């Protein structure tokens, strides 16, 4: 069982990394923010699986913390976006 | 908050809830308990500012809502998966507008958050008059009927049927 759970964890990590690659290459800041959410969910799933495989319950805490951080950074990002004077069209290639 | 005073028994109930959550997360060790009580009290105090006392939830409505929401949430994931795995993703994305009866504020935001986990729908923006802009994965589906049903189910979870923000 432990081997299966570890395998599933690595599969999810690989798939998440693939999605991350796609999202991070985007020019839109919003799409890059999606990377945080993706990483939060994917890493939480992988950690929970690894924790069950190695019977170390502390990894669940790490998963919990990651989800929390993802939620907070999304909120902070949105606040930053709305506080921008930003009605002016951003120049092409602008990072934000 | 003078105009929005939270009664003491509500605060106590919330504090007990937060303490229970803390115990689940940290484990029931007696020497840690004082920290948990302080944390729960702080959380209850904060919640007085964020969650109006009158916006109570009806328990049976909540239960019926969960019975409806969980299968819908599963259906949403399966729906996205089906489209993602199809040789040509069957998509016709676009926006619909929907007039909600919920007043602006927490109830409406929560309703939007719930809708965003329903199949094929994602509320994008809400205007002051209650017009919601909702992004749909597939405009060929009967979106408006589904939205009305979702909203009705959500209103049942609020004690006053969603008339109060």
């Amino acid at each position: 069982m432990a081997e299966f759970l570890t395998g599933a964890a690595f599969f999810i990590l690989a798939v998440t990394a693939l999605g991350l690659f796609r999202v991070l290459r985007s020019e839109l800041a919003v799409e890059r923010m999606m990377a945080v959410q993706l990483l939060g969910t994917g890493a939480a799933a992988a950690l929970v699986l690894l924790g069950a495989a190695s019977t170390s319950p502390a990894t669940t805490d790490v998963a919990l913390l990651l989800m929390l951080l993802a939620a907070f950074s999304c909120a902070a990002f949105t606040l930053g976006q709305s506080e921008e004077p930003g009605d002016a069209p951003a120049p092409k290639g602008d990072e934000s | 908050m003078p105009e929005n005073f939270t009664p003491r028994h509500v605060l106590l109930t919330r504090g007990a809830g937060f303490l229970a959550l803390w115990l689940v997360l940290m484990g029931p060790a007696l020497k840690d308990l004082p920290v948990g009580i302080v944390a729960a009290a702080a959380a209850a105090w904060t919640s007085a500012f964020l969650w109006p006392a009158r916006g109570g939830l009806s328990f049976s409505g909540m239960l019926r809502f969960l019975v409806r929401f969980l299968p819908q949430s599963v259906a949403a994931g399966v729906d996205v998966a089906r489209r993602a795995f199809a040789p040509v993703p069957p998509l016709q994305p676009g926006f619909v507008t929907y007039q909600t009866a919920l007043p602006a504020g927490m109830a409406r935001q929560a309703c939007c958050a719930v809708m965003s986990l329903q199949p094929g729908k994602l509320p994008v923006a809400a205007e002051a008059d209650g017009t919601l802009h909702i992004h749909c994965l597939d405009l060929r589906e009967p979106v408006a009927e589904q939205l009305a049903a979702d909203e009705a189910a959500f209103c049942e979870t609020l004690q006053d049927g969603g008339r109060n923000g």
Partner: protein
Amino acid sequence: MSALADLFTLVMVAGGALLFLAGTLGLLRFPDTLSRLHALSKADNLGLGLIVLGLLPQVGSIAGGLKLVCVWLLAQLSAATASQLIAGALHRRKSGR
């Protein structure tokens, strides 16, 4: 009994992994940002939900199980609000132009 629980875990975790794959495929294949956001918030979320559900028979203690459920609840909450916030930010940028 234990074999049955193991089978349940196997099926649920496999289903969850499949949904994560679907989420990534959606990210790669869906045509616009908002559709990709659909894929991200819905598929990955259900994937995590299935994995948590599948692992429940494997945890020894009730507290451990409750904590797992907390992870899932937090994920649901975070996905619902985050997708809202991201979509809102996108909408404002578009209508601002």
